[in-house]
C-alpha cells in the first residue's frame, strides 16, 4: 500500500462528497477522519485496519449525500440559465445536467408530459411485443435438454409435416448413435365410460419412450415402459395427468390401481404424471403433454393393428449428445431408403401406403420449431411494426428537444464565445434524453402490462399465443433497458450534433428572431423520416386489411350459415364390426332429422375447417400406372347421403349417395370438379373407376360436385374424393345439420336424438359451422386489427410531428413574415409558400415510405392472401392518407402565419 499520510487520505476521501457539503463542513470532516485514523493506529491497528474503515465510511455516506443534494437542488426554485460548468468533476457535471433537466421539466411540464407519454407508449408496446416473442419464440420448451428434442416428420408433397408409421418408428429406434431415444405418439379424443355420465377426455397414445424423450417423471406411482406400450406385449395400463387426478379422483392416493374404462377397454391407473412446469402460464407448453391421459400405443384404435396402419402418429426424439439436426435428417434419409428397399413392412397395405406416398422422406426439426413455427411470421411482422412506431415516437421527441436546443442557440453561442465548453450543451441534451428514456421505459413496463391485458381482450387466434402477464424476467428487463438506451441515443443524437457546433459569429450577428437555416434542415429531415415510416406502416396495414377482406370474401364452396355441427367417436368394443357402426349411423341420422328445426342432416368424417382430414393416393383404371412415388393425391372425405344438400355443395353431374350405397353394394365415390378436370380432362368421369391403397377393389365414380374449401379459406383448389360413409364406416365421425332456426338452438334436441340411440355416447365440439369458419380467419383479423392500431398511432404521431415542425418554423419566422406582410406581400402568398414546403417534404417522404412498405410487405407475404406487397391500391391509399394528414398539419400553422399582424410582429423585437 502506498505510503500516504492519514491527512492526505482524509482529503481524498472528503472529495467524494458534494461540493456544497465540502464547503460547509469539509475541513471538520477531514480532521475527524484523520483523528479517527490516528487513534486507531495508536491503538495498534494494522494499516489496512485503519484505511478500510475510513473508506467504508465514505462509501456508505458520500453517495447518500449526493442524492440528498440532488433532491434539494430540484426542490429549489429554478434558475433562469444553465449553470456554467468548469473545473468540476465529471460527477458534478452529470448531476448538474440531471438537475437542470428536471428543472426544465418542472418549468415546462407540458413538454415533459408529452415527451414521456409518447416514449412510454412506444416502449410499452415494444416491451409487450417482446415479451410475447420471448415467451413464444425464444424461450426453450420446458423439458430437460430441450435443445436436443426434435420432431421427426414424414414429408410428402401434400403434407410437408406428416405422420410416421409404426414400422418407421421401430426402424428409427434400431438406429443407434443418432438419437438418444425416440418416441411415437398422438393425442386423440377418448371416451370414458363406466362412470355416472359418458365423458370425452383427451388421451395421448404414446410409447413408453415418450416419457424418456421429454424427461418426464411420475409424481405418484410409475410410468409405463416401452414393453408395456408395444403392440403384442402391451399391458392395459394408463398414466393420468395431475389435473385428471384432481378432477376425477379428488387427488385420492388410491387412484393408483383404480380402473378407468377408456374407449370401452378397462385400463389400470399406474401413475400420475408430474408436470415439468407451470401449465397455466406457459403458452407453448401444452403441445406435448396437455392430455388428460397417457395410454400405451398398443391400445390405439386401428382396425388391423398398429403395424399395418401406415403413417398414423407423430414422432419425437432426443438427439444423442453432439448430434446436429442436419445429421439426424441425413441419417433418417438413410433409414427410410433402407426401409423401402428391404420391404420391412410385412403387410401389403402398409407398404403401398409408403411407396404410394409421392416423394415421401423423413426429416427432423427442432421441436421448438414444430411448436411455434406457424406463429413466427405474424409475430415478427407485429414486432417490426411496433419498432417503427417507437422510432416515430423517438423522432417526435427528438424534434421537441431540437426545437428547444435551437431556442437556446444564442445563449449557447454567447457562452461559447466567452469560453464555455461547447460540449457542455451537447452533454446536457444527451443527459436529458437519457433521463427521458429511463423514466419512459419504467412507465413503459407498466403500459406493457396493460397492453398485454388488452391484447387478450382482442381475441388473439390460437396460433398467436398471448401470455396473460408480462413476466418481469431478465430477458424482458434487459430488452427494456436496451430499448431505453437506444431511445436515448436516437432522441439525443440530432439535437446534440446540431448544437455541439454552433456557428458563433453567425448566431450572434443574427437578430433575436431569425430563421435558422441549418436547424430547419435537421428538422425537415426528421419530419421526412417520420412521415416515411408512417406511410410504410399505413401501407402494410392496408395490405393486411385487403388480405383480410380477401379471406372473408374467398368462396368457400359451401354455405356455412345455419349449420349445426358436433363430433363423436364410437367405442370400438361396443361397435366391433362395420355393420354395427353403420347401424348406429343410420338410426342417429333418422332421429336427428326428426328434431324440430332440422331441415337436413348427414354424417361426415371431418367437418370442414375443423382441422381434421386426410389424403389418399389414387390410381385411375385404364390410365397408365403412375410411378408409385408420384401417385396423385386427393383429400379424402367420408359422407352419408344428403351431405351435399346439407352443406349446399352443388352437384354438377351424376347423383348423390343413397341409403342403398352400403356394404352390400359395389364401392362408389363422388369427386370434386378439380379432381374431374385433373384426372379426366375432356372426359365424362361418371362411371369411371379408380383404386386406392386403403380400400378393397375398384371404386366407381357416381357424381361430380363443386370444389369446397376444407382447411382454410385461402388454400389452393385440391382434388377431393368423397366416399360413402356407410361403405367405409369409422368410429370417428361428425354430424352436420342444416337448420331452419338459429343453429345452436337445436343443440338439446340433437343431443337427445343421439342419446336415444345410445345413452352412453359422448359428443363434443358442438359449434355452428359459421363459428368454426370464422375462427380460421382469426389470424388475419387479429393481425389486421393490431397493425391498424399501430398504423393509426404512427399516423397520429407523424401528424403531430409535422404540425410541430411547421408551427415552430412559423413562430421562428414571425418577424420575417411581419416584414414581408408590411412590405405588401399578400397573406395568401405566405400561406402558399409554407404549405408548398410541407407538400414538397411529404412527396419525398411518400417516395421513401412506399419503397420501405414494399420491403416490409415481403416480410408479410407469409400472412398475406390474395394481395401482393406491391398492390397499387394499398400503396396509393397510404400515400393519400398521409398526404391529407400532412396537409392538415401544415395548413393550420400556415394560416396562422398568413394572419400575422405586421405591427405586432415587428413590435415584438
Amino acid at each position, binding site marked *: 500500500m502506498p505510503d500516504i499520510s492519514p491527512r492526505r487520505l482524509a482529503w481524498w476521501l472528503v472529495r467524494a462528497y458534494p461540493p456544497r457539503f465540502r464547503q460547509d*463542513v469539509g*475541513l*471538520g470532516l477531514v*480532521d*475527524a477522519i484523520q483523528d479517527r485514523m490516528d487513534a486507531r493506529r495508536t491503538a495498534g491497528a494494522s494499516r489496512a485496519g485503519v484505511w478500510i474503515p475510513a473508506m467504508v465510511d465514505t462509501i*456508505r*455516506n*458520500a453517495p447518500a*449525500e449526493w442524492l440528498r443534494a440532488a433532491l434539494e437542488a430540484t426542490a429549489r426554485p429554478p434558475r433562469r440559465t444553465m449553470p456554467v460548468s468548469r473545473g468540476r468533476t465529471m460527477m458534478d457535471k452529470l448531476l448538474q445536467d440531471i438537475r437542470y433537466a428536471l428543472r426544465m421539466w418542472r418549468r415546462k411540464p407540458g413538454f415533459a408530459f408529452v415527451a414521456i407519454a409518447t416514449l412510454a407508449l412506444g416502449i410499452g408496446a415494444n416491451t409487450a411485443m417482446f415479451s410475447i416473442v420471448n415467451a413464444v419464440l425464444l424461450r426453450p420448451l420446458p423439458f430437460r435438454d430441450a435443445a436436443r428434442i426434435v420432431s421427426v416428420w414424414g414429408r410428402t408433397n401434400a403434407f410437408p409435416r406428416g405422420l410416421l408409421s409404426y414400422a418407421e418408428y421401430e426402424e428409427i429406434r434400431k438406429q443407434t448413435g443418432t438419437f438418444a431415444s425416440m418416441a411415437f405418439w398422438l393425442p386423440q379424443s377418448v371416451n370414458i365410460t363406466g362412470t355416472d355420465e359418458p365423458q370425452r377426455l383427451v388421451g395421448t397414445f404414446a410409447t413408453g419412450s415418450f416419457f424418456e424423450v421429454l424427461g418426464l417423471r411420475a409424481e405418484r406411482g410409475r410410468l409405463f415402459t416401452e414393453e408395456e406400450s408395444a403392440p403384442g406385449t402391451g399391458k392395459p395400463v394408463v398414466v393420468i395427468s395431475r389435473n385428471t387426478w384432481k378432477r376425477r379422483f379428488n387427488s385420492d392416493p388410491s387412484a393408483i390401481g383404480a380402473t378407468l374404462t377408456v374407449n370401452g377397454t378397462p385400463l389400470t391407473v399406474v401413475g400420475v404424471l408430474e408436470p415439468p412446469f407451470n401449465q397455466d402460464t406457459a403458452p407453448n407448453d401444452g403441445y406435448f403433454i396437455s392430455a388428460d391421459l397417457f395410454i400405451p400405443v398398443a391400445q390405439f384404435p386401428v382396425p388391423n393393428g398398429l403395424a399395418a396402419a401406415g403413417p398414423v402418429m407423430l414422432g419425437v426424439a432426443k438427439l444423442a449428445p453432439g448430434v446436429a439436426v442436419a445429421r439426424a435428417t441425413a441419417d433418417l434419409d438413410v433409414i427410410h431408403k433402407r426401409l423401402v428397399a428391404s420391404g420391412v413392412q410385412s403387410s401389403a397395405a402398409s407398404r403401398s401406403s409408403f411407396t404410394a406416398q409421392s416423394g415421401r422422406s423423413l426429416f427432423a426439426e427442432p421441436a421448438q420449431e414444430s411448436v411455434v413455427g406457424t406463429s413466427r411470421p405474424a409475430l415478427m411482422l407485429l414486432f417490426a411494426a411496433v419498432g417503427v412506431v417507437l422510432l416515430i415516437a423517438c423522432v417526435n421527441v427528438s424534434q421537441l428537444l431540437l426545437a428547444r436546443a435551437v431556442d437556446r442557440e444564442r445563449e449557447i453561442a454567447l457562452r461559447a464565445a466567452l469560453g464555455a465548453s461547447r460540449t457542455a450543451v451537447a452533454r446536457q441534451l444527451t443527459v436529458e434524453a437519457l433521463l427521458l428514456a429511463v423514466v419512459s421505459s419504467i412507465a413503459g413496463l407498466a403500459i406493457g402490462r396493460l397492453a398485454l391485458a388488452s391484447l387478450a381482450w382482442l381475441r388473439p387466434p390460437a396460433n398467436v399465443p398471448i401470455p396473460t402477464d408480462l413476466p418481469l424476467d431478465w430477458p424482458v428487463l434487459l430488452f427494456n433497458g436496451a430499448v431505453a438506451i437506444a431511445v436515448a441515443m436516437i432522441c439525443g443524437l440530432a439535437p446534440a450534433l446540431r448544437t455541439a457546433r454552433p456557428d458563433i459569429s453567425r448566431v450572434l450577428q443574427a437578430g433575436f428572431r431569425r430563421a435558422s437555416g441549418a436547424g430547419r434542415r435537421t428538422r425537415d429531415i426528421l419530419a421526412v423520416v417520420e412521415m416515411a415510416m408512417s406511410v410504410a406502416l399505413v401501407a402494410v396495414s392496408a395490405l393486411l386489411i385487403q388480405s383480410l377482406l380477401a379471406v372473408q370474401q374467398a368462396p368457400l364452396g359451401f354455405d356455412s350459415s345455419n349449420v349445426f355441427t358436433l363430433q363423436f367417436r364410437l367405442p370400438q368394443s361396443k361397435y366391433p364390426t362395420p355393420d354395427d357402426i353403420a347401424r348406429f349411423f343410420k338410426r342417429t341420422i333418422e332421429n336427428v332429422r326428426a328434431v324440430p328445426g332440422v331441415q337436413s342432416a348427414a354424417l361426415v368424417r371431418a367437418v370442414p375447417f375443423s382441422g381434421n382430414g386426410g389424403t389418399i393416393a389414387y390410381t385411375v383404371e385404364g390410365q397408365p400406372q403412375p410411378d408409385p412415388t408420384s401417385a396423385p393425391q386427393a383429400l379424402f372425405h367420408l359422407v352419408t347421403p344428403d351431405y351435399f344438400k346439407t352443406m349446399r355443395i352443388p352437384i354438377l353431374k351424376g347423383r348423390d349417395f343413397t341409403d342403398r350405397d352400403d356394404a352390400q353394394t359395389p364401392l362408389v365415390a363422388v369427386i370434386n370438379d378439380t379432381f374431374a378436370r385433373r384426372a379426366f380432362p375432356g372426359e365424362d368421369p361418371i362411371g369411371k373407376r379408380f383404386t386406392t391403397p386403403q380400400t378393397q377393389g375398384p371404386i366407381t365414380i357416381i357424381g361430380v360436385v363443386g370444389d369446397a374449401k376444407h382447411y382454410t379459406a385461402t388454400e389452393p383448389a385440391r382434388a377431393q374424393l368423397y366416399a360413402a360413409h356407410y361403405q367405409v364406416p369409422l368410429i370417428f365421425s361428425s354430424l352436420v345439420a342444416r337448420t331452419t332456426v338459429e343453429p345452436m338452438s337445436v343443440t338439446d334436441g340433437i343431443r337427445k336424438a343421439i342419446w336415444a340411440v345410445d345413452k352412453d355416447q359422448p359428443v363434443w365440439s358442438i359449434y355452428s359451422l359459421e363459428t368454426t369458419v370464422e375462427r380460421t380467419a382469426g389470424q388475419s383479423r387479429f393481425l389486421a386489427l393490431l397493425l391498424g392500431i399501430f398504423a393509426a398511432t404512427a399516423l397520429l404521431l407523424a401528424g403531430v410531428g409535422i404540425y410541430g415542425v411547421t408551427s415552430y418554423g412559423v413562430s421562428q419566422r414571425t418577424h420575417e413574415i411581419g416584414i414581408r406582410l408590411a412590405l405588401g406581400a399578400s397573406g395568401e402568398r405566405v400561406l402558399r409558400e409554407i404549405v408548398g414546403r410541407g407538400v414538397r417534404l411529404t412527396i419525398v417522404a411518400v417516395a421513401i415510405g412506399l419503397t420501405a412498405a414494399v420491403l416490409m410487405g415481403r416480410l408479410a407475404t407469409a400472412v398475406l392472401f390474395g394481395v401482393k406487397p406491391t398492390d397499387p391500391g394499398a400503396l396509393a391509399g397510404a400515400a393519400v392518407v398521409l398526404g391529407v394528414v400532412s396537409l392538415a398539419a401544415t395548413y393550420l400553422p400556415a394560416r396562422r402565419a398568413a394572419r400575422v399582424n405586421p405591427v405586432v410582429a415587428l413590435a415584438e423585437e
Partner: protein
Amino acid sequence: MTLRPVEFHILLALAEEERHGYGLLQEVAALTEGELQLEPGTLYRALHRMLKDGWVIESARRPAADVDDERRRYYRLTPAGRRIAVAEAERLSRLVSIARAHRLLARA
C-alpha cells in the same frame, strides 16, 4: 418529525460544552458506554443537516489556549437545538414512565 438517534446523541454530546468533530465521536462513544461507535462520515452528514436546520452552530469562542488546536472547528447547540433535545428527552422519559406503569421496567 421524529429525531434520528444519531442526531439526538449529537445533541446530548453537545449539551454541556462545545466540541470539535472528533471530540463528538469520543463523547458519543463515552455516553453510550462504547455501544455507538460513529464513523466520521455518518457524524458529519448528521452535523451538516443540523447546521443547516439551525440546531447547532459553529462556535466562534475557543476553549482555553492550552487545550486548543487552532485548526479545529468547534460546534455548540443553538437555543433551538437545545429545545429539540429537551423535547426529545421528555418524550423518552414519558415513554419510560409508561413502560414502568406496564411493568416492563423496574421502578426507579
